[in-house]
């Protein structure tokens, strides 16, 4: 009995004997592999960013007699941006803690705060881009600026879609409540949101801080 109980119940017959060659696909509950599948997606997304980081590492020093990082980057602004993303990470964490306790209203408030921090991040980033373009530092100006805009812009695009996804899920929870499917979606977005924060660590270290050292 104890031997049988240690086996997956899908591979045990009525008498508790193990089935070595199941004829039918065992029953899988809906969404049981979503988290693993989403993790695989994040890992492939990680490879996209790795390629963009590699491009930046290779051509990030080609200024074409144009502006260098020191002329363009404003570290206090980047620090503010970083803190926005970091704060949004912990408020999303608090939303997840509220979700586990089924406190829907509390969770929605934390999600809303997370969204506001996300939008602040995007606003500051767009301000920075607009300021750079105003100075003539457009993506076409040099290899460094092409690589900069594609890397930081791709991250910003991810945050944009994260914000859209966040609002979508807030409406879903508002309409249908914390059903298992919504919990699963919120857990996927949690991974996505924290993953973007991890990518940002690479961006502020290797693009902004290293840019100021050059």
């Amino acid at each position: 009995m104890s031997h049988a109980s240690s086996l997956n119940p899908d591979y045990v017959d009525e008498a508790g004997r193990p089935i070595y060659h199941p004829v039918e696909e065992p029953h899988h509950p809906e969404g049981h592999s979503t988290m693993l599948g989403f993790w695989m997606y994040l890992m492939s997304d990680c490879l996209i960013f790795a390629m963009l980081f590699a491009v930046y590492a290779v051509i990030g020093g080609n200024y074409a007699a144009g502006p260098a990082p020191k002329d363009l980057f404003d570290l206090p602004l980047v620090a503010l941006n970083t803190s926005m993303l970091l704060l949004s990470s912990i408020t999303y964490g608090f939303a997840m803690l509220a979700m586990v306790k089924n406190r829907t209203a509390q969770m929605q408030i934390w999600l809303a705060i997370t969204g506001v921090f996300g939008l602040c991040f995007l606003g500051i980033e767009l301000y920075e881009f607009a300021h750079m373009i105003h100075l003539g530092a457009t993506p076409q100006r040099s290899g460094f600026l092409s690589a900069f805009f594609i890397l930081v812009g791709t991250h910003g695009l991810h945050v944009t879609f994260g914000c859209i996804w966040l609002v979508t899920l807030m409406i879903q929870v508002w309409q249908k409540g914390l059903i298992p499917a919504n919990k699963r979606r919120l857990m996927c977005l949690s991974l996505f949101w924290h993953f973007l924060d991890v990518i940002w660590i690479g961006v502020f270290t290797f693009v902004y801080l290293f840019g100021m050292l050059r």
Partner: protein
Amino acid sequence: MSAEAHEEHAVDHHDDHAHGDDHDHGSFKTYLLGFVLSVVLTAIPFWLVMTEALAPQTTGLVITAFAVVQIVVHMIFFLHMNHKSEGGWNMLALIFTIVIVVIAVAGSVWVMYHLNTNMMPTHDMQTMG
């Protein structure tokens, strides 16, 4: 009885990894700890670069180390990575990704650096001809 035994096993399993990360979703304490660590690990690199307290090369090494540590902190406290999540497949996928990332980034930098050093001086070509 089988269900009972299974439940007991589940409880044991839960206790097994309670000392590191007590639940898949973490707790208020682990999130706060992760946040405080992240703030410290972010603030020090920014401070080092802004004040130029160390030589540029040393600063570069130190902020790289801080970035790596902060990524690990985020993985553990925010993404709740451990060797057991999804039966170890999460960790396996992560290790595979890290291997590919290191090959792609280090390989690109290495190859392109050598291309630059070999291609740039045109006088070498002339002396060869």
